[in-house]
């Protein structure tokens, strides 16, 4: 495992998201609660909508282009045949840490 500090929790607005650039494409970091965070692929499997621009509700995000709704726990799209990759992410002392080995492995897969 190789955990990387990618920023402070307050850099993401509550119920908002930011993307991070990786060699294997953009990953979206979602802040669903004061101290609740998820990481998943930024790319909507439907037509490539940027998920970090979607509306975040409960532990889900709605794609801004055509309203597919993804569960951030599993990455599964609600009622659609599609899913996004999710990645291990943690909050330690108000900083966001992402596991980059997982990222490399799964994005490549």
């Amino acid at each position, binding site marked *: 495992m190789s955990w990387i500090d990618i920023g402070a929790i307050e850099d993401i607005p509550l119920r908002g998201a*930011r993307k*991070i650039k990786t*060699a294997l494409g953009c990953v979206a970091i979602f802040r669903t609660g004061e101290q609740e965070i998820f990481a998943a692929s930024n790319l909507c499997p439907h037509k490539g909508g940027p998920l970090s621009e979607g*509306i975040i509700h409960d532990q*889900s995000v709605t794609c801004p282009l055509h309203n597919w709704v993804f569960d951030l726990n599993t990455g599964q799209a609600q009622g659609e045949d599609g899913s996004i990759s999710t990645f291990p992410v943690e909050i330690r002392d108000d900083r966001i840490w992402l596991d980059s080995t997982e990222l490399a492995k799964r994005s490549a897969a």
Partner: protein
Amino acid sequence: MKQKLVVIGAGMASGRAIEHLVETAPDAFEITLFNAEKRGNYNRIMLSPVLSGEKAYADIVTHDEGWYAAHGVHCRFGEHVVGIDPEMKVVVGENGHMPYDKLIIATGSAPFIIPVPGRDLPGVITYRDLDDTNAMISAAEKGGKAVVVGGGLLGLEAAAGLAERGMEVTVVHLMGHLMERQLDEAAGYLLRGDLESRGITIRTQASTKAIVGDGRAEAVLLEGDETLPADLVVMAVGIRPETRLATDAGLEVARGIEVNAQMQTSDPDIFAVGECVEFDGNLFGLVAPLYDQAKVLARTLMGEEDAFVVKDTATKLKVTGCDLFSAGDFADGEGREDIVLRDPSRGIYKRLVIQDDRLIGAVMYGDTADGNWFFQLIKDGTEIEEMRETLIFGPSFQGGDTADPLSAVAALSRDAEICGCNGICKGTIVDAIEGGASDLGMVRAATKASASCGTCTGLVEQLLQVTLGDDFEMPAAQPICTCCDLTHEDVRRLIKSKELKSQDAVWQELGWKTRNGCHVCRPAVNFYLLADWPLEYRDDPQSRFVNERKHANIQKDGTFSVVPRMWGGITNPTELRAIADAAEKYDVPTVKVTGGQRIDLLGVKGEDLPFIWADLNKVGLVSGHAYSKGLRTVKTCVGTDHCRFGTQDSTGLGIKLEQVLWGSWTPHKVKLGVSGCPRNCAEATCKDIGIICVDSGYQISVAGAAGMDLKETEALGVADTEQEAIDLTIAFVQLYRENAKYLDRAYKWVAKVGLDWVKARVVNDLDERARLIEAFELSQSIYRRDPWADQTKAAAAFQPLADLTLEAAE
């Protein structure tokens, strides 16, 4: 041997205690009863009917001389007790000492007198005992003016009694509404109306500064130096426990004489009962708890075990024709829910306050028949979950299987108002249904009921069901989304009526089934909150679609478009140069003239947005809101400036309109057109609002469409002046903001409420027009600003949070 029991004060509490004692243990005590008043026990709370003339003193006496004689109570009436010596165990009366084994202090309360100059003048009376009542009665015989200071229970009973006896009465009350300790504002308002209708003048938020007069009271001077002439001044601002004897005797006294649950003071042989006591931090001002105390005290003296507990009390006002009831705790609070029923035509208001599935408070005005039933539910802490739907209709709608909201609607009287907007009563609607109106649309057409704000739709549908029975099929209300069961209209109404001012309040109070809504309901709720509470609630970007959060239109490839405002379609070389420079600097692939008379820069990268905006800002270009549910464009033609047919300055008016309206959030987008003559080159007649200038003024029409639907505008009204045209436009936009369902374009909303309803408010009712304009301006004091300028300060948020390109590739 009999113990010597001395009682100080022959009031309602001690009267009840003595009764218990002599009835259950006639031989235990030798009782001596002191009373400062020259008489024994009478029903003090019935002094008001004596004052008003409905009863005589003889009717309210509870214990007459024969009773005291028969029970061996030694009476010393008209004699003040001036001291207690707990060491020697004697009471000192004006006419001599009296030793005791046990002592009861039952001195009640003394009226509070506000310390203003002139309070001691003759003609200033308090309201506590028969002497006060008689003094008022004889003052009223001379007629004239009375001022009652204090709009609580006592003050209002005094005021009503004096008015009944022919005096001209003014009530001066410090607070915002009458009886504020027992009533909420709605009930206080109804009470005020009833009292005013019997000729009593009510002055709220009025503070008494002095009582003035030469040798006797002649007037009351208010803060602000207004003078109210007065032949009689009644001071009824409150009471204070009468504790002086106890304090002097060295007993423990806080606000009242402190007692334990056995009514025992800090001296084990001295007891206290009634309004003079303080128990567990509570003071008492109504008889119900005092009767409980009296019973406990009697049992304690007889050596039996009992303990006093504080219970909720209920209040009624003894003014004939003012039917009010209040019980329990009805203050707003977290976790509390209200059920409110209003029947404006009958002056009925009922409000129940519920917490944790239990009734904790009730306020009622106009119809208090069910008051005691509600009071019992409060006292028993009954779970009301089962009967919640019908609770407010009272006990006759409860009970087993018959509990049904329909029977409640069926029970409403024919003149119960159903549609508040149009003043339509139940009878009118039922007649229409019986006359053939078989669905909501037909009822609306026939009666106008529910054709306006639509909040009574549910009631009208229930009436259809009650009247038509199985012939009527209830349409399922369309909830906003699966997060809740309420319609847009219900949510809007409840946000206003329950004063919900945050998303959390909406979720909690309206029973959202999700944690924080979804992409369908949250933008709607965000809009409703900011439209209704512009100062208290601030727009939440995270509850907006990406375009409105980013202040740019997202494209299918994830880039954005940038459309700066060109006020009324007018631009200049500096602006055009800045746009050209920006297009080059940020590699904008497409520059297009839009259908809205301005220029669109399409294909800008998200990261570049704050920078291109900053560049455009430098020459004064601001956001065109081409992405928002808000003001888009005001399309104009050249008008009088250049056109040989132009009648008015259409370009100038368009610019003015765009400058007042820009930045405002609306239920859907709003587009305007202003044409200089009926040739209509600005295509004004297919906009949300279109203005056609003519020689005599401005023709204003609304509710056009040229998108998915095509519809010509309908005439709203004609304005003589440019200012009136602007006023009508603002008022229309604000009415739309306050009432429309989120994502209804103006034409859809007008089709629902009817153009007549809109005209009645925007055109005909000048007060309402002024209110709408004022409300719009209040909101614009916050939202009339350039979001681009604000966003450029937060440019970092537009960049990726981190760049892991190197690390992840390892």
